């Protein structure tokens, strides 16, 4: 049975086609989910892709979190469904309370698009088991509000519990606290990151195919669960 992974589209979502392509490249079936539809159509996992949902007006992700589809995602995540939030998707998951902290404007104030080295800090989440712990992967980063912020107790808890999944290597690109690129929920099932693994699935169109590992990892996790 092929795993079915949903990709949500909000008004202003941009990387939904790319996320669906990455799902297909990994061998799963990509299922389009519409923000206004609370029905998750029986998917096994969900990707909340990047873009500028609702123009990022008010605050990144602040409006999208109230979409009917997100209400269902919050429910499903509570029951352990793997959820991956990429860039704007990460921001939405933070706004939705599935992940702690928030993303703020880059410290240099400009949008930054570049190929970014990340270190895999935790290879036990459903989205990172295919990587060796400590492995360095090359994934595009493209965001204007990518600086991860949280209060000290939250950062300490994330670090202490091993919930920092990906960390920037080299110069910090956006002022993110502790060079954090991606984190996991307490149960590890929900992961959010600013860089775009769906743009690193083929050396033809990306800097590497390192991003596919996240989607393969999810398939492994779903296969084990099944």
């Amino acid at each position, binding site marked *: 049975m092929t795993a079915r992974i949903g990709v949500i589209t909000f*008004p*202003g979502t*941009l*990387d939904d*086609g*790319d996320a669906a*392509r990455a799902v297909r490249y990994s061998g799963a079936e990509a299922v389009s989910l519409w923000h206004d539809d609370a029905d998750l159509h029986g998917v096994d996992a969900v990707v909340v892709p990047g*873009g*500028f949902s*609702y*123009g*990022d*007006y008010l605050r990144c992700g602040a409006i999208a979190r109230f979409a009917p589809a997100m209400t269902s995602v919050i429910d499903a995540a509570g029951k352990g469904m793997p959820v991956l939030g990429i860039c704007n998707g990460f921001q939405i998951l933070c706004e939705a309370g599935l992940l702690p902290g928030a993303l703020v404007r880059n410290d*240099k104030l*400009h*949008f*930054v*698009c*570049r190929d970014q080295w990340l270190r895999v800090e935790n290879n036990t989440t459903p989205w990172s088991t295919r990587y060796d712990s400590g492995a360095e992967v090359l994934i*595009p980063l*493209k965001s*204007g509000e990518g600086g991860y912020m949280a209060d000290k107790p939250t950062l300490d808890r994330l670090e202490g519990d091993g919930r920092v999944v990906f960390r920037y290597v080299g110069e910090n690109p956006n002022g993110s606290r502790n060079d954090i690129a991606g984190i996991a929920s307490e149960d590890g099932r929900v992961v959010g990151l600013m860089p*775009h693994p*769906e*743009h690193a*699935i083929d050396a*033809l*169109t*990306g800097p590497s195919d390192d991003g596919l590992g996240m989607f393969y990892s999810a398939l492994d996790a779903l296969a084990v669960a099944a």
Partner: protein
Amino acid sequence: MATETTLIDTTAHAAETPDTAQPYAELGLADDEYQRIREILGRRPTEAELAMYSVMWSEHCSYKSSKRHLGYFGDTTTPEMREKMLAGIGENAGVVDVGDGWAVTFKVESHNHPSYVEPYQGAATGVGGIVRDILAMGARPLAVADPLRFGPADADDTRRVLPGVVAGVAGYGNCLGLPNVGGEVVFDKTYAGNPLVNAMCVGAMRAEDLHLAHASGAGNKIILFGARTGLDGIGGVSVLASATFDGDESAGGRKKLPSVQVGDPFTEKVLIECCLELFAKDVVVGIQDLGGAGLSCATSELAAAGDGGMYVDLDRVPLRAEGMTAAEILSSESQERMCAVVAPSDVDAFMEICRKWDVIATEIGEVTDGDNLVISWHGETVVDVPPRTVAHQGPVYDRPYARPASQDDIQAAAPDKLPRPSTPDELRETLLRLVSSPDLASREWVTQQYDRYVRGNTVLAQPADSGMIRVDESTSRGVSVSTDCNSRYVYLDPYRGAQLALAEAYRNVAAGGAQPLAVTNCLNFGSPEDPGVMWQFERAVHGLADGCAELGVPVTGGNVSFYNQTGDTAILPTPVVGVLGVIDDVKRRIPTGIGNEPGETLLLLGDTRDEFGGSVWAHVVHGHLGGTPPEVDLERERLLAEILVAGSRDGMISAAHDLSDGGLAQAIVEMALVGQCGARLLLDPDADPFVQLFSESAGRALVAVPRTEELRFTEMCSARGLPWRKCGVADEQSNQLEIQDVATFGLDELREAWEGTLPKLFA
């Protein structure tokens, strides 16, 4: 522009009050143009009609100074060149058949004056406008690219304008989800008071889905959809885009008020998806975008292209400002709006799709079986005009043009006498100085603000010579684009300079492995009222058209921007040329950086001559601009392109870079830095090293060839008559660029020189 009465100025009222004074001069119309409108209508125009004619007869919309010369593009396009053209000049954008049933549409437009007044919004709405042009053809926009020109990099005002323009391009394009794959950043003092912000968009559709906008079929509904209409940008094209920034006599010597529109990329992103669904569900006869001149333009062009008249009720237009007059509604340039012609039976389905995307859609009128475009406001007729007289029958000027007497002196001031570097130390220093000059330094500070990855089909992007996009994932068919113009060359010789711009864009597309297929342009010039400028324009158009005919690539569309000058000083003539190419399999694309294969041989293709007129060296080192530009040989360009495309197809070339600004030295530096790979360059001991390194002779490329392919490749070049010279090797073990008998550079040293400049100026 209030008349003496606050009553609505109806057509009946206009007929009764022929002597009412009208502010046509303030709206940019000449006396004789105003008289012509009165003749067409047989009465004075109403306030609303005057607003329509004034915007549609502006230079920006009517091409009144350029039309006479632009016809030459059509005259020089042979039936053979037309074969792959599905739509050409006069449509929203040109459309080309790229094979496998795919049609590609592409266009460049200028948004120069708004971007000087308000850099962020000017640039942002420039992107928005060109994307809607592409969308109106029924195509999905695939990528954008922005040719930009600014004053000197270290000028105070450039620090205001450049970061704002770049942020505007980024803010709008990134939010739309379109990869930015190319463009240019050029600095010259003539752009200081008049930057050039040109925007290109490329889109694709299945050939059978091509939609040409027209309002045909009496009873069909006119639906306005997208954003509400407000007070922004009123008179943008007539006031802003069609005059210089100095006061003019008709305006009493006062500066005109800025009329820059404000963009909302989120609304446009939703509008894109909504339009594509409307096309896919086949519920529209045609869609027209609202850009310059707003509803005036959309309604008159739709009606003019149709087979009848049109009725529009302005009271139905959703507004976002109170107390707007009919004239203001008609000339508002509020962004993110489209106008559709829809069969009555499809209206419900149309509205349902708009509701899905939360797009406001309003039926504002219908196609009639009359002849005129009739517009009512508060129940009264305020416009009743033959639409073609508004859209297509504007004035055509035969502006005087003459080669300026100063042109002889300009060409006589050849760079031959300028002191040249000759010792190894001098050559070393010259190379570093040029690499780090704002003219040649890395554009990464700009381009890293643009999303080049979105949509996942970007195969080549800056700093590659061309931007390449995969169009079809199942077949790997793709297209590539490049825009180029060395305006110093055009200044020295407009005819040859325009051909050199064409040659460079053509070569850049081929350097990525794509076959050049079609041409678009954005012709940025000074005031057409200056005979010297008009001469530059006439020569450039002829050069470009003749060049296209020689290369067999048609011009499918273009844009003219006049009045780019500060006081009496015009910008360097800047006919930006965009070339579109096609590649059967994007996996065969040729990257820019060396070191992709172990042990590559470097080959210099083409002839190098002592050519420094208009060169970067003369400009940067001596502040000199004189002489004649490099020779142009389009037959050679065609042969070079054939070799590059064949080399790509047969896997013989592992990296390629065209030689242009800065010559061989700049090309090898960029190939080494992009590839993060060392190299040894061997100059011809019998030739002047300075000329070899820095000459800007056209028709050349530097290619890296895997050692296993070297013989096959060089035999192909020899057999077909393309001169080549083995000039070095790539060395992935090395972190140096060694130019034998001249100098050795660490890649770190070169990287700092190349990449450090723009951040120091603008970060």
